[in-house]
């Protein structure tokens, strides 16, 4: 039996793990004690990572649609078919009619080649990734960006929205250990989860008011407590813009207890170093961009020497979301996290790619689905991120051509005209960049399942089939080019990345924001969704509630899969989680099917109760809310994202 | 070395639907030697393999007397039971067993035997009822009180018909909710308890059914004067091996598959104290 050190393919932590291999098969997973991220720990997903490799549900052969069915075929046939289909749309409708989606689960080499494939081979600027589209890379200045080790020596941890126990146990372990050594914890969230119960101060957040309390905190620190001292001038503009200045006003508007805010200020001032943790729970809210920038203002204060040192840690949900950003899998960006307007970046890439390419800003994913006629999707699952997924699904069915490359037959792949089987993280080399910007090399433990191929290789083979070959022989070749054109990755190599731990890269700073720039963030009243007699509850989409429940790779797990699929079995219409007092009030029995009605319509769901949910609020997993037609969708001003907002609803038992 | 995980092959001899989601399968071992060696007592269970779907535990639902095959009564709920419901007579399934302990028989000779049963709980008790009735001269009396939610949820309906008219056994039925055509008792099965007129200090009660029903009935029985070790039930748990190795069926300090599934009320109370 051999032990291959590699990295976990799941969340953004990028924990090290050993795959146990026997007779050419992966038979187990174990930890890596010497790993700088995981330090000998793994979560449920990590411990069962081997189960998605040697798995009977894996796609082993290419599939081509013939009538209603997808049938197995040869690579030659499938690639020819894919090339023809894509070329037909390019010729009849032009490159703008084709879209390409990359993946926060795939390697940097895969995403990089995907961008080249899109812009150079297909000639389209439409490149995005559904998860990357909803994250907010440009709002955390790298100057504030922290790493997991910052949790080890922080005096105060400020956890906003995030629930590491569910989403990022690798980070959660550090928080628990910080508590043991006496660090203080302040949690700000809607649900009062385990760490919130253990926190020194818990700030119960009202839906829609995610930024308001930050403004109040800044007011308390800078105005009431004059924390800026002699530097007060520097922060004047910031202070002037706070909309909800005093805690009492915040309390009356949002229900956030003023005393709790004062306690938070006490802990903040007493700290020498603060780490701020947040995750998609904050980022996916309508206030997401504003809230993240408000948090960034704390980092800015720290750098001015006002108050404690503050680092921000965005707990990214998937293994290579960071790499996605770095490889330019977003509209208006190019590999290197450079804007399409960066002429130096364009030139670098032209040299690397041997000629001009479509260098414009393309459509974001929420427009790609619906406004294009053909889509090429590598490992992405928009159903878990895009709101009003049923509409999107209807649009996908109308596509002239859809090609999906993936490991399992995801619901998206089931709609495709061509499905190409991808190799897993354990069957090929490649680099993944974790939430700290740590680039790590995954090493192959076994040969690919059946005829599956590494994602980057599929793109090379397809580009050849389309008559525009991309000249790469190995993943290492691709990485070598990445190190030449992505400035932050310069100087790296597979050898330098070593066996375990990789190397951290720090990208270019986007915004070194000044008080003037941050002021508008905090100014302007948030519009809080209102309930009333007709719709007395607020239904919120919660990304930290069962985030892995229906993910294709977790439900396919042979033994631990039961943990993930049972939620969908027990809640066939989706789970609605309420406070027990509300369940009693509205006569809702746990387990019963109920009708949830908003101004937009009605849906059926199954009821569960939990003390963690505050009264007046109902939560459903985010990836289920994307499939509902009853949620309010707002277009976020700063980013243009259509975002699911907390929606006033009524809930009744179904006869 | 013998392998307790190795199933013997049986063929499904008969498939008899009991309700819309519950079916009785009659299984017979293919090998005569396996048939001979399969000696079991009421209360024991078997692990049934539907090859490709998996394996699950089921109580043996028929007396062995006069038969070289046996019944299991299965509700369609999960992966294995759904796969089982796709099979017809002639299909083969694997069986391991008999497993677990059994209902006391000789030990309760001379007593008034009372069965208080709800819904699918009749399946594990049916072999005991059949054996006790057949040897009723060894007992002071035999009473069966059986209830289900609606008439459509009653199982073994043809036998129930017979039981209600047997000499030497008193069998009363009830349903929680009557539907058209039902002329019998309406009420929870506990409501039939006043029909027990004999001295409960000379009685033993076998109880099985949904957990809530068991709780209420046990309370009533204790209230009537039954000693806690004279009330006997059978527990079920998620099992992956049935032989005390996988640990899934542990409750407190007991393996339900090895120390049970049959327990007295007193034993269950002790288990609940260790693990509420």
């Amino acid at each position, binding site marked *: 039996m051999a032990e291959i050190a590699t990295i976990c393919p799941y969340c953004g932590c990028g924990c090290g793990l050993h795959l146990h291999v026997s007779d050419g098969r992966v038979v187990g997973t174990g930890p890596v004690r010497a790993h700088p991220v995981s330090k000998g720990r793994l979560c449920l997903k990590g411990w069962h990572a081997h189960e998605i490799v040697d798995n009977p549900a894996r796609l082993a052969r290419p599939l081509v649609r013939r009538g209603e069915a997808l049938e197995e075929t040869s690579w030659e046939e499938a690639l020819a078919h894919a090339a023809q289909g894509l070329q037909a749309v390019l010729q009849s409708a032009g490159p703008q009619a084709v879209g390409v989606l990359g993946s926060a689960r795939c390697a940097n080499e895969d995403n990089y080649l995907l961008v080249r494939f899109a812009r150079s081979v297909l000639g389209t600027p439409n490149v995005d990734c559904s998860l990357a589209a909803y994250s907010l890379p440009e709002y955390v200045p790298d100057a504030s960006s922290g790493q997991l080790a910052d949790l080890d020596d922080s005096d105060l941890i400020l956890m906003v929205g995030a629930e590491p126990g569910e989403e990022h*146990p690798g980070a*959660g372990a550090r928080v*628990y250990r910080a508590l043991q050594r006496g660090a203080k914890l302040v949690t700000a969230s809607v649900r009062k989860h385990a760490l919130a119960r253990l926190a020194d101060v818990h700030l119960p957040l009202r839906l829609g008011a995610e930024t308001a309390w930050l403004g109040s905190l800044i007011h308390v620190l800078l105005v009431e407590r004059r924390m800026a001292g002699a530097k007060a001038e520097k922060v004047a503009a910031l202070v002037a813009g706070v909309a909800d200045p005093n805690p009492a006003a915040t309390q009356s508007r949002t229900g956030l207890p003023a005393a709790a805010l004062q306690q938070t200020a006490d802990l903040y001032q007493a700290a020498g170093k603060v780490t701020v943790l947040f995750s998609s729970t904050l980022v996916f809210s309508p206030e997401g961009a504003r809230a993240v920038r408000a948090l960034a203002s704390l980092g800015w204060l720290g750098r001015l020497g006002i108050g404690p040192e503050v680092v921000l840690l965005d707990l990214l949900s998937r293994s290579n979301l960071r790499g996605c950003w770095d490889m330019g899998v977003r509209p208006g960006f190019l590999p290197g996290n450079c804007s399409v307007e960066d002429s130096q970046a364009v030139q670098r890439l032209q040299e690397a790619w041997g000629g001009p390419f479509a260098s414009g800003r393309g459509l974001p994913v929420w427009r790609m689905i619906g406004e294009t006629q053909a889509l090429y999707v590598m490992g992405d699952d928009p159903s878990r991120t895009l709101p009003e997924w049923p509409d999107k699904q209807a649009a996908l069915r109308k596509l002239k051509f859809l090609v999906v490359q993936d490991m399992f037959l995801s619901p998206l792949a089931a709609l495709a005209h061509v499905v190409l089987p991808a190799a897993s993280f354990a069957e090929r080399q490649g680099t993944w960049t974790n939430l700290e910007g740590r680039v790590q090399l995954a090493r192959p433990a076994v040969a690919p399942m059946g005829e599956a191929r590494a994602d980057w290789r599929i793109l090379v083979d397809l580009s050849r089939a389309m008559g525009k070959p991309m000249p790469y022989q190995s993943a290492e070749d691709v990485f070598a080019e990445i190190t030449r054109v992505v400035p932050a990755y310069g100087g790296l190599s597979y050898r330098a990345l070593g066996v375990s731990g990789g190397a951290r890269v720090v990208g270019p700073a986007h915004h070194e924001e000044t008080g003037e720039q941050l002021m508008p963030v905090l100014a302007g009243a948030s519009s809080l969704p209102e309930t009333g007699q007709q719709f007395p509850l607020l239904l919120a989409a919660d990304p930290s509630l069962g985030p892995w429940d229906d993910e294709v790779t977790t439900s396919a797990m*042979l033994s631990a899969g039961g943990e993930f699929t049972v939620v969908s079995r027990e809640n066939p219409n989706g789970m609605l989680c309420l406070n027990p007092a509300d369940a009693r009030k509205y006569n809702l029995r746990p387990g019963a099917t109920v009708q949830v009605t908003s101004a937009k319509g009605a849906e059926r769901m199954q009821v569960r109760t939990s003390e963690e949910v505050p009264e007046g609020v109902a939560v459903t997993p985010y990836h289920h809310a994307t499939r509902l037609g009853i949620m309010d969708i707002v277009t976020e001003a700063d980013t243009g994202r259509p975002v699911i907002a907390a929606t006033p609803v009524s809930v009744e038992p179904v006869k | *070395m013998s392998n307790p995980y190795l199933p013997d092959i049986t063929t499904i001899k008969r498939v008899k639907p009991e309700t819309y989601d519950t079916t009785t399968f009659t299984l017979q071992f293919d090998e005569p030697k396996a048939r001979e060696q399969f000696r079991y007592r009421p209360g024991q269970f078997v692990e049934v393999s539907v*090859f490709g779907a998996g394996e699950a535990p089921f109580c043996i639902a028929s007396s062995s007397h006069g038969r070289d095959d046996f019944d299991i009564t299965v509700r369609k709920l999960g992966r294995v039971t759904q796969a089982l419901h796709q099979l017809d007579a002639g299909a083969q399934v694997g069986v391991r067993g008999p497993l677990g302990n059994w209902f006391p028989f000789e030990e309760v000779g001379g007593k008034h035997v009372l069965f208080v049963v709800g819904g699918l709980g009749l399946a594990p008790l049916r072999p005991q009822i059949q054996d006790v009735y057949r040897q009723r001269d060894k007992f002071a009396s035999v009473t069966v009180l059986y209830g289900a939610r609606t008439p459509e949820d009653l199982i073994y309906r043809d036998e129930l018909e017979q039981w209600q008219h047997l000499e030497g056994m008193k069998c009363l039925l009830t349903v929680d909710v009557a539907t058209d055509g039902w002329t019998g008792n309406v009420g929870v099965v506990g409501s039939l308890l006043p029909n027990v007129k004999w001295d409960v200090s000379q009685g033993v009660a076998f109880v099985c059914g949904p957990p809530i029903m068991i709780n209420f009935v046990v309370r009533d029985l204790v209230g009537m004067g039954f000693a806690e070790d004279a009330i006997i039930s059978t527990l079920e748990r998620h099992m992956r091996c049935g032989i005390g190795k*996988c640990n899934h069926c542990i409750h407190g300090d007991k393996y339900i598959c090895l120390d049970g599934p049959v327990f007295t009320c007193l034993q269950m109370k002790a288990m609940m104290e260790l693990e509420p």
Partner: protein
Amino acid sequence: MSAYLLPWDRLEELVGRLLKAAEVIAPRRLESGDVFYGAIASPAEVAWDYRSAVEPLKRFLLPQREPILRFSTNGKLQVEPIYDEKDRVFLGVRSCDVSGVGVLDAMFGGDIEDPYYMARRRRATFIALTCQEPDEHCFCVCGDGGPFLKKGYDQQWTALGEGMLVEVGSEKGQALADSHSDLLSQAEPSHIGERLRLAKEAETRFGDFHSYIAAAMRKLSMAEVPEEVWEKGADHCVECGGCTFLCPTCSCFTVTDRREGDVVLRERHWDACMYSCYSREASGHNPRATRAQRVRGRFFHKLSLQWAQRNGRHGCVGCGRCVATCEAWGHMAAVSEAIRRGWESE
């Protein structure tokens, strides 16, 4: 019990001979920097100077994923078991890990033997290496699992000045010593003396590491632990399963069938009682529906007198791996302390 001396200059030859006769599992330093027990190809690979291996010996007796039956449905239905019948010598393994095997023996042996475990176990020879220095999280003194063993090994080696002191603990161990008697000499009283002295010294070095297991055991066995301990304990656990998978004595497994063409393979996989669906029945009913119940279930099974009586000893050998691998703060040291004194108010 006989004791021998294996001089240092004979060590390599002995290991070489072991390699010719069986698979030798020993501590190896991997590229990643970790030490794992694994099959060595040459005597030089043994990392004699290690403190603890990342994983216990469990994987070699009860694999994380193990095919146990093969059903062929081609024509007549046939069922065949799949056994691993390799001879293995476990060389230089830690006392706590050998103690853990003793608990697994009780669980997989007894009245009903698990043939898969036994097939591997009967062909296994354990040469334990006594510990002189504790690793970061060790508390074997508290868990009665080391640093020196009184029984449970085939041979127990202690590094002395002149070589390895070889203590024989079983017939298998004696037979092994006999077959390599040309490399061994009778242990002198001075060697025994040195070995006893080292044991005493080791105890003091390990002695600071407490987990108060005895106190926790008493309260658990008498059901005297307040509910609040389990409620709060639940907040200190994220159900990663790490404590279960790295524990030398944990052995819960689940069983799945998978189709590969005409063949159905029945496999068993490690499972964890901490997982939410561990005891969930097909009906949806779950006797351990809350995390607090699962935390209580785990520690009752590990430490109660009731289970200790069934298995011959309680379930914690003090290896410290759960402490190292816990993704929250719900490991043996934390929970046994909480059982004793409650969770500290945060």
